[in-house]
């Protein structure tokens, strides 16, 4: 199937998948420290387990950022991510390899501007589609 560029997008096209190496605690500590997120279930295995989680879990906001990355890496220089939703359906744990994928589901013109809608998701071998969402991009095809 053709991989999408938003300016040439057709319904059914897939976005180029973003494949990531196994999630590390170093990665989560950098994210949590930089973004000032101090819920210890994101960096302490002991506290995560004491709160009922199997291990350290990835931040929801980082998982949303994975979906945004999937979209923005397919944007042209004048294209713009207008909206993004994300629902969390499963846990993403330390060591999981997260793959972000997406598919164009709709295109339309509104006020003379091309809009492209894609379903997007993060998947892992353990949890399947752990996050699902919808992204809408406006395209400047000039």
């Amino acid at each position, binding site marked *: 199937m053709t991989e999408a560029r938003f300016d040439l997008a057709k319904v059914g096209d897939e976005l180029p998948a973003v494949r990531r190496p196994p999630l590390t605690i170093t990665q989560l500590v950098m994210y949590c420290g930089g*973004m000032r997120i101090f819920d210890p279930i994101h960096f302490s295995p002991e506290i995560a387990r004491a709160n009922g989680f199997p291990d350290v879990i990835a931040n*929801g906001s980082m998982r949303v950022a994975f979906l945004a990355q999937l979209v923005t890496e397919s944007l042209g220089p004048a294209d713009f991510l207008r909206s*993004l939703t994300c629902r969390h359906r499963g846990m993403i744990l330390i060591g999981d390899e997260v793959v972000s994928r997406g598919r164009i589901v709709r295109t339309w013109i509104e006020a003379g501007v091309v809009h492209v809608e894609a379903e997007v998701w993060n998947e892992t071998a353990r949890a399947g589609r752990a996050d699902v969402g919808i992204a809408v991009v406006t395209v400047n095809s000039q």
Partner: protein
Amino acid sequence: MVGTVLRARQSVLVEAALVDAFELAVGVKPTTSAVAPDGAEVRRAPPTFVYHLVHRPFDVTRDQRPGPLVDLPLGSPVNGGVEFDFARPVLVGEVLSAETVLHSVEPRRGSRGSLAVVITRTSVCDAAGDEVACYRHTTLYRRHDND
């Protein structure tokens, strides 16, 4: 309670060092750029960086999970998801302001008892007061009245 300002509007610089940390941790290519009104090329922040302009108060003297956003007897939070709308790209080096308001609190019956579904709305504005982004965040809490 709905409409309560949970985090009052405060101005925040979009710092390059924090955008660096975001991009490195997420694995985003730090190459996105935009053209400023004066024609200069400037660096875009990743879209969802605006998620992190407002912060929960935290207590560094104790290793514990943060308490509920609202003044109710609620259990530990579960992140239910988010909906973003973006009006324009956010640029590194600009000063934004953000405010979080309680949008709704609704009971829900889950498979393991009753839940409270708390939705907040955060508005992010630029120095001119124009909204550049907003997001609605859903948090699920187990209600202590299950116990």
